[in-house]
């Protein structure tokens, strides 16, 4: 991992986008010995429409708190993909929800991963877990954060009675990510 990695999580309000950034930030800064700063879109316009959270990850203390050249974009909606793919650095990673995002003319140098997060979430009972499936996939394909740290970060950030099912959603997504990585390996 580079000394600083910038990540944008995006989608629409209600998908648990901010929660994705919170879980990842907590995992990195409390359990993976990294520094992480999370800032989010905040306002009445965030609910139901475009929503994004920024996460700066570094081995050193972070001073500038915003992303300017993200290496990773997770887009769980068409609007988020359209709006944010141009900012991703060449060679960066793009993760999209494959049923919700129709890929367009993004930079061909991006490494693109498609995850059926909503379908997987529905298969374990509820599409509310889409964000955790996507996060598991993100963890497997980017290697920015360890799966162990992510699972440790969940208590307190998901409702206690749904902790187990959130963990299994994460694990399903992670398995998909590992398979996708294997399939993509030369």
């Amino acid at each position, binding site marked *: 991992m580079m000394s600083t990695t910038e990540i944008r999580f995006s989608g629409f309000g209600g998908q648990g986008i901010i929660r994705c950034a919170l879980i990842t930030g907590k995992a990195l800064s409390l359990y993976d010995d990294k520094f992480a700063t999370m800032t989010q879109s905040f306002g009445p316009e965030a609910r139901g429409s475009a929503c994004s959270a920024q996460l700066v990850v570094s081995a050193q203390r972070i*001073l500038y*708190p915003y992303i300017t050249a993200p290496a990773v974009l997770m887009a769980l909606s068409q609007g988020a993909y359209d709006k944010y793919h141009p900012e991703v650095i060449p060679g960066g990673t793009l993760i999209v929800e494959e049923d919700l995002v129709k890929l367009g003319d993004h930079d061909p140098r991006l490494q693109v991963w498609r995850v059926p997060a909503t379908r997987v979430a529905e298969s374990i009972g509820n599409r509310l877990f889409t964000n955790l499936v996507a996060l598991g996939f993100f963890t497997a394909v980017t290697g920015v954060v360890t799966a162990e740290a992510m699972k440790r970060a969940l208590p307190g950030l998901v409702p206690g009675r749904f902790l187990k099912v959130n963990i299994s959603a994460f694990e399903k997504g992670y398995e998909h990510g590992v398979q996708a990585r294997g399939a993509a390996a030369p």
Partner: protein
Amino acid sequence: MNIVHADPRGVDSGAHFMDGDHAIAEGALAAGCRFFAGYPITPSTETAERFAERAPEVGAMFIQMEDEIASIAALIGAAWGGQKAMTVTSGPGFSLMMENIGLAAMTETPIVLANVQRGGPSTGLPTLTAQQDMFQARFGSHGDYNIIALCPDSPQECFDLTVEAFNLAETYRTPVFIMTDETVGHMHEKVVIPPADHIKVVERNLFTGPKEDFRPYRFDSQGGHPMARAGAGYRFHITGLTHDERGYPVMTAAQNQVVVTHLIEKINGNAECIIRLEEDQVEGAEVLVISYGITSRIAVRAIAEARKKDIKVGALRLITVWPFCERRIRELAGQVRAMVVAEINYGQMVREVERCAAGRCRVISVNHCGGAVHDPAVITQAIEEACR
């Protein structure tokens, strides 16, 4: 001053991934605050939520009041009832609190108020960041008085400075403000809350002598004169009117001179003990960038860019905004070519810098109104311009 370790009941020791607003509530609880009265307002509400959630665990009282005027009045009552008390608000609520901030200053009541700043004036920009209330914090209530204001730049500092705010409030018997902003308030980072026995807390200085000897005030230009708890058997009077050492009204020009001088000098006279600054490469700097709160973290990138161009840039971050660091600015004005002051307002603290620099170096204001942090390139440009 009676310094003790924090009461472990209020200290949620350990590492957290937390936003600035929550860290303020945790800092208050660690400092021994057991009374919170407030009225919800974006972007400060998360502090109230956190305090309300934690209050039953630590035996604290949380009241959602009918408005901000009542909130700050309740704080003054709670403080004279023996509690450490705080509230949190943003611009419009801060305006409503101004009258009783004056009452707290006049009656030398230790209270803590956090203002999570958003764009103004009026309801302005409820969800967006600003640093537009800096002068209101110092001069917002009528008459001459003084206060202390601190400006955190991270969630960790929100915790640390809230503890310090309570300690300063007790030490100088004055309202203390935490002047943060929406960005820091809602930013999540790691916050380490130390064990209770690593947190120093200044206890309320309570009078213990014979009842007939108690005086609620002493106009000696120092802070920290002992208080008595209402109901503890000491007889005293608290009023916003100009008063004597017993607290009874004395409506003369001479007494106003005595009281007001004390209110101002107890803070100005101890400014060197109160003021905290963070300096980086100030020695030998040609240009000094002065900023505070979130803007100081944006300025870091601008300064790094300027240094790549071999410009000798120093940075000075105001951790204590009020009292203003007059002595240090006067010193540095004789050493640098220019001072660049970056802030998210139409130009507030830059006036203090100009006053203290007194024409001995150029002072350049890099400001814009509320709603967004700076583009670092704009600050870099100002640094380059300052060298010309």
